[in-house]
């Protein structure tokens, strides 16, 4: 890290100290400011709401992926889990919303446990295991549904999809609670502490009596669980299942959100709230480009460049 130049006035020094490790807030402020200037209708309550609604899925998936990355791993199968969850949800529709929710979460949990068990049990690279899962889980979702979208009308699902509580979108409230709970768990439980220990120095963690295998397994299980929840939400929001298109490439957005939020790909750090802010930042950037008629395609390229910059900067600093 570079030292502050000696000539900078005390105010700058204090600002710098305040922002150290929180550069993302600065970036967020800049994006919001630029948007407020250049994007018409940006600073409206309606627009804030839309932004929050749109980032729910990425925020949930990214929260899970943050846990996995903290252990030094990765999970590419999250998008496929969303597709599978949507199929499970529709299949369980006759049994009510509770069964559907349980089914979605269960499907996600099962895939997560599968990934984690192979990674811990056989010591294989997380990338390859979850790459395989990405394909077979998607295939399974398509097989179970015959590859078809199933449209449905269900009051409970509709409420879960677009309903409001206390004037706020229900999904946003739930996602916020989930993020908060996971952030609390990471910061305040033994599990959370062990997570970063395992990622930060596996040898030291083992000698300090940390059950590394169980910790890693739990991280993948939680990641799958949250992907399942995201699958339930997207199904409710859209009003249909979609085994083929739900969650495609969401793993990239999720990884990006986590990395932008300060979680290091090498492991050893979990910034759950940072991830949520990262997801917000990405959403605002994408939305701003689309609203300013830059086009979806170019937005993808810009997003890709953004991820690369952050990852490259991370490498340099460590």
């Amino acid at each position, binding site marked *: 890290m570079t030292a502050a130049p000696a000539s900078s006035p005390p105010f700058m020094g204090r600002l710098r100290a305040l922002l150290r490790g929180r550069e993302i807030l600065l970036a967020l402020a800049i994006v919001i400011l630029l948007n407020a200037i250049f994007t018409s209708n940006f600073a409206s309550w309606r627009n804030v709401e839309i932004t929050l609604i749109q980032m729910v899925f990425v925020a949930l998936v990214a929260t899970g992926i943050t846990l996995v990355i903290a252990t030094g791993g990765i999970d590419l199968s999250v998008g496929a889990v969303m597709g599978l969850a949507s199929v499970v949800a529709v299949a369980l529709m006759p049994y009510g919303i509770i069964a559907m929710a349980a089914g979605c979460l269960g499907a996600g949990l099962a895939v997560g446990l599968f990934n984690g068990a192979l990674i811990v049990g056989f010591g294989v690279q997380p990338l390859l295991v979850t790459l395989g899962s990405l394909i*077979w889980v998607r295939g399974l979702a398509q097989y179970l549904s015959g590859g078809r979208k199933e449209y449905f009308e269900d009051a409970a699902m509709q409420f879960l999809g677009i309903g409001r509580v206390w004037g706020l979108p229900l999904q946003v409230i739930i996602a916020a609670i989930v993020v908060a709970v996971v952030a609390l768990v990471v910061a305040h439980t033994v599990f959370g502490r062990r997570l970063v220990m395992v990622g930060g120095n596996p040898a030291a963690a083992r000698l300090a009596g940390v059950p590394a295998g169980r910790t890693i397994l739990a991280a993948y299980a939680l990641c799958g669980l949250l992907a399942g929840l995201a699958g339930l939400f997207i199904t409710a929001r859209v009003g249909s299942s979609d085994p083929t298109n739900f969650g495609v490439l969401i793993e990239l957005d999720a990884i990006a959100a986590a990395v932008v939020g300060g979680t290091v790909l090498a492991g050893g750090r979990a910034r759950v709230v940072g991830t949520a802010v990262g997801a917000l930042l990405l959403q605002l950037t994408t939305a701003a480009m689309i609203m300013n008629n830059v086009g979806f395609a170019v937005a993808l390229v810009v997003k890709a460049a953004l991820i690369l910059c952050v990852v490259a900067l991370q490498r340099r600093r460590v």
Partner: protein
Amino acid sequence: MTAVPAARLRLDGRLIAAVLALVLVLAIGAWRNPEFLGAENILNVLRQNAVLMLLAIGMTFVIISGGIDLSVGSILAFTSVVTVKLAPQGLPFAAGAAVLTGLGLGMVNGLLVARLHIAPFIATLVTLLALRGLTLAVFGEETVALTEGRSKILAFGRGFVLGLPVQVPIVVAVLVAAWVLLTQTRFGRAVYAVGGSEDSARLLGIDVATTRFAVYGLSGAIAGLAGFLFAVRIGAGITNYGLGLELDAITAVALGGTLLSGGVGGVAGTAVGVLIVGFLFNLFNLDATLDTFLQKVVRGGLLTVVVVMQGTILQRRRQ
């Protein structure tokens, strides 16, 4: 001077296992379906899997060097459209452009991995994302069909040379060239060294960054050639290829005995691996026992199984 012991014929256990697996697939196929081992079906399988073979050859270099390239499918998609757009200027020109485009994109990967030290999977995954956007932005549509001179081009792409599909001699030439490059040149030795132990390779005087850079460039260039072959066979460029072909390529490479941890393997094994994958899914199609979705489950499952098998072998060796 002591007598130099003659090079022992090295019985590569993994390669033998791969060949046996291939024989097994062929035997089951022949038993299930009389047409399976017919000349027509075999030539058809070879033609259809030419693209996969090329991607897998490039992937072999990358994996031996200790990396991974998830972007080859999207490079293929991009260059297939390049081919279609440039085909009216003549096929050799289109082929050259496709290969050079692939090379350029691969070099971007190489730059990210070798110079900026970004983890290979992130670098190539991001390239994949950017390429999707780029393809849409440049060409503006999902499928670009050949129109001008379509029949002539398809006659090439679906034609025969000496009784073999036109793809076969091209792929064989690339395969031989890759084998020579990997086993008979300093560059090839360096690729193995970097994948075997990056630190040692550096201390032993290998230019690690340049080797890596070259490997991704090569993988991109071969993917470009694959894009060309894809376009002239199908008669269209397709922009929305995501993860899929790269997964099959990785599976084929791993099946052929190249260790996913790097440093060990070769293109001969990869060729066998591609044939296993090719004939296996050909059998599913002929048999019609597995619908396309279940085939996908098998595809992902196959990679998982191979990865776990290799993991077990490596773990046992470590003890």
